[in-house]
């Protein structure tokens, strides 16, 4: 009888849990590592829904049309076969989630209800109120808990991934991780490792991402030789609620259910939104994009809002804000379809969006780039897989709303079985796994010692604030090469200052500032990948917009950016790879025609 494959999964959001379920179901043993109890992962924040072309509204929707919208929405930067496969699996994934008990909204006949999201003309988005991510995560969490109680999944919650364990041939043989309570460093051998560690929001300071979304794990792997794809592709969501501690998302579903974006026609109008009559409101998205209206893709809406605020000086009350208005829709409908997000607005802002228009502004939201993977979700390091937001594969230069939940589950469902297949064929004989484990543990312990004993006068949280400010200012919506070069120089300065980090807390029990300082090192490295990748891409494509190069340039840049760490220069080195456009021929991406 064949041995039982042991698969290590890092991250317990939708991608990690999907992979865990597939591995456990196939008879593999799962060791699941997470910074937080998996039920508290960032997937809970996804609000509006999950796309799949179930075509339950008699609109003639199909997986091919979903595929076309996704590739077109991503401005043709994604390799097409993986996207096609995801869209084809979509309806089956929705059925499975439904069987798992996700309380999807229903039509009067009792079938799944669907709503419209950005970048499509079809009602393709299944949803559970306005907390779809939470509901999906819970369904998968419950299935994994069932496997856990059967002994097929072992959870390591409150553990930090530090690095992969690579043997002499650079094959992944396990991971090195740290218990966040005892701060003990341990290595774990595995036949394959699946990363599911989400986005990199913290590199931009404030974002819609959760606290754990630092990108540290991806940064660590990049330093170990993993290729990082399309790092420069960062999505700024058009509708967020600015806050002191973070930017809170106001879901695209608000527009999907009829929400309208506008500013007063008179700049600096002193009246409240409610007092301004209909004919004195400028619905700029509807006017500029008559076909898609408020549901243009996120990059388009974000740039339009920046333009109205910064170029035309028409922000609400002269501030960087526009209105997102739902107050014309009846209360019962809003509560049924958007209840969760309207509560968030009311709780955190204090105004009731049933009655008054919400004040919103764009904020960093999603990481399209990520660890480079092949069609089986394997990175360039054998035995190491990446899934969900931490991989680069599906969304190209811009993600369509409600495609993220699907891409996470899809990737987990691909990686799980492939990791098992890989481990059945892999042979650890000849590889000195024990020595590799011991060496990696030693390397990580040395890093811990160095950080705790560091002398200097820098506070890691201060460095973080500066990192976030410079990245948000210069490497998000509108990008200029000179400002990004200054940003890269600033990043080098921060790396220098990082060497002088002195922790006020040097204890070795549940020390969160120690953990954060450790993550900062990887975050700074990854920030350079994002920034330099953006400098080198002299064109505008999807979310990547350079006023000095306003057009898409397929001849030069219809290519995947691949960053590799160059230890000699302590900087990224870049390669460009052809994009697989074998299924849909690239065409100009325009949403402003009728």
């Amino acid at each position, binding site marked *: 009888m064949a041995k039982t494959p042991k698969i290590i999964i890092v991250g317990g959001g939708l991608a990690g849990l999907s992979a865990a379920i597939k591995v456990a179901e196939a008879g593999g043993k799962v060791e699941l590592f997470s910074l937080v109890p998996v039920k508290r992962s*960032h997937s809970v924040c996804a609000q509006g829904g999950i796309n799949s072309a179930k075509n339950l509204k008699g609109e003639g929707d199909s997986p091919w049309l979903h595929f076309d919208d996704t590739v077109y929405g991503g401005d043709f930067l994604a390799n097409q076969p993986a996207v096609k496969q995801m869209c084809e699996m979509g309806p089956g994934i929705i059925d499975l989630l439904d069987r798992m*008990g996700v309380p999807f909204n229903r039509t009067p006949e009792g079938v799944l209800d669907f709503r419209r999201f950005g970048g499509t003309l079809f009602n393709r988005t299944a949803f559970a109120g306005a907390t779809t991510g939470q509901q999906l995560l819970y369904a998968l969490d419950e299935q994994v808990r069932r496997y856990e109680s059967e002994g097929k999944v072992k959870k390591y919650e409150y553990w930090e991934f530090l690095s992969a364990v690579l043997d002499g041939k650079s094959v992944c043989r396990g991971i090195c991780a740290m218990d966040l309570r005892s701060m003990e460093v341990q290595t774990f051998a595995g036949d394959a490792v699946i990363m599911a560690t989400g986005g990199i929001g913290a590199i931009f300071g404030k974002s819609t991402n959760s606290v754990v979304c630092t990108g540290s794990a991806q940064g660590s792997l990049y330093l170990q030789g993993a290729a990082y794809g399309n790092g420069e592709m960062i999505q700024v969501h058009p509708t967020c609620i600015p806050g002191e*501690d973070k930017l809170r998302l106001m879901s695209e579903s608000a527009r999907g259910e009829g929400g309208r974006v506008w500013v007063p026609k008179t700049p600096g109008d002193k009246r409240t939104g409610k007092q301004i009559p209909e004919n004195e409101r400028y619905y700029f998205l509807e006017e500029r994009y008559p076909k898609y209206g408020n549901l243009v893709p996120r990059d388009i809406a974000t740039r339009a809002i920046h333009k109205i605020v910064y170029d035309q000086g028409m922000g609400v009350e002269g501030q960087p804000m526009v209105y997102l208005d739902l107050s014309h829709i009846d209360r019962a409908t809003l509560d049924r379809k958007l209840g969760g997000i309207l509560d968030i607005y009311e709780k955190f802002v*204090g105004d009731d969006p049933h009655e008054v228009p919400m004040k919103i502004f764009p904020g960093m939201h999603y990481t399209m780039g990520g660890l480079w993977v092949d069609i089986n979700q394997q990175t360039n390091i054998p035995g190491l897989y990446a899934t969900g937001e931490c991989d680069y594969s599906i969304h190209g230069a811009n993600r369509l709303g409600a495609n993220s939940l699907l891409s996470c589950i899809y990737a987990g469902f691909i990686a799980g079985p492939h990791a098992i297949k890989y481990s059945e064929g892999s042979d650890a004989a000849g590889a000195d796994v024990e020595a590799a484990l011991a060496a990696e543990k030693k390397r990580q312990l040395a890093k811990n010692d160095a950080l705790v004993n560091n002398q200097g006068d820098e506070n890691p*949280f201060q460095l973080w604030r500066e990192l976030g400010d410079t990245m948000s200012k210069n490497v998000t919506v509108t990008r200029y090469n000179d400002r990004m070069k200054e940003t890269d120089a600033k990043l080098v300065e921060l790396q220098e200052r990082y060497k002088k980090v002195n922790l*006020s807390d040097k*204890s070795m029990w549940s020390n969160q500032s120690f953990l954060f300082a450790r993550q900062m090192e990887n975050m700074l490295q990854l920030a350079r990948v994002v920034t330099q990748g953006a400098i080198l891409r002299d064109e505008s494509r999807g979310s990547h917009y350079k006023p000095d190069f306003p057009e898409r340039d397929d001849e030069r840049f219809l290519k995947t950016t691949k960053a590799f760490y160059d230890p000699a220069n302590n900087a990224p080195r870049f390669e460009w790879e052809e994009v697989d456009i074998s299924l849909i021929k690239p065409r100009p991406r325009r949403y402003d025609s009728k």
Partner: protein
Amino acid sequence: MANKTVLYKIKRQANPTSEPFWEEFEIPYRPGLNVISLFMEVALKPVTRDGKATTPVNYDSNCLEEVCGSCAMLINGRARMACSALVDNLEQPITIEPFSKFPVVRDLQVDRSVLFENLKAVKAWVPIDGTYALGDGPRQLPQVQEQAYQLSQCMSCCCCMESCPQFNEGTGFVGAATIAQARLFNMHPTGKVLKEERLAALMGDGGIQECGYAQNCVEACPKEIPLTKSISDVGGDVMKKAVLDFFRL
């Protein structure tokens, strides 16, 4: 009033066995502050109100949108989420303490794993045959979905358990959250195949009978989940099962 400030006191504890102590902080007031941002201020400048150097505060948090359930603690004596606790709505000095009925890990971090164990005990899942293609899920009327959705928003924050007078070592009570989840899965067309097992797990010591109907749970719940209704519904089912089991003997 010149130079408005925010005054807050945090109960700290270095590890599970050490003695707790209080520290006071004062920062300049800004609009829009929540309790999380008060902790972020300490991390940026770890100095107490009386000028003593200290360390950043340890606390669980993640989404900061009141949907992940991480940052539950006692704020001015009330069990609630720190992210949605706005300074403007809190009386000062703001007192911030860890939950009192869960083991302290450090500072405001507590160990709430008991809830996840309870969810295992009541088999809080739909036992699907497998992830392979088996067609559509069961049809459900929108009214049924709305009822399920309410219960399914439970984010395992444990505010209901912290607030419950019966939730203590003496009773071993499972608490409202677990009972509401048992109800959720007993309602589901497929999930109810395990109904008998769920009810059995809620019988006897520490089970649903421990509820004293104080109704604190439903008031504490940040998601307004109908907890007392759930307890009385499941309580009725447990009672029915107890009677039937008795006659079956």
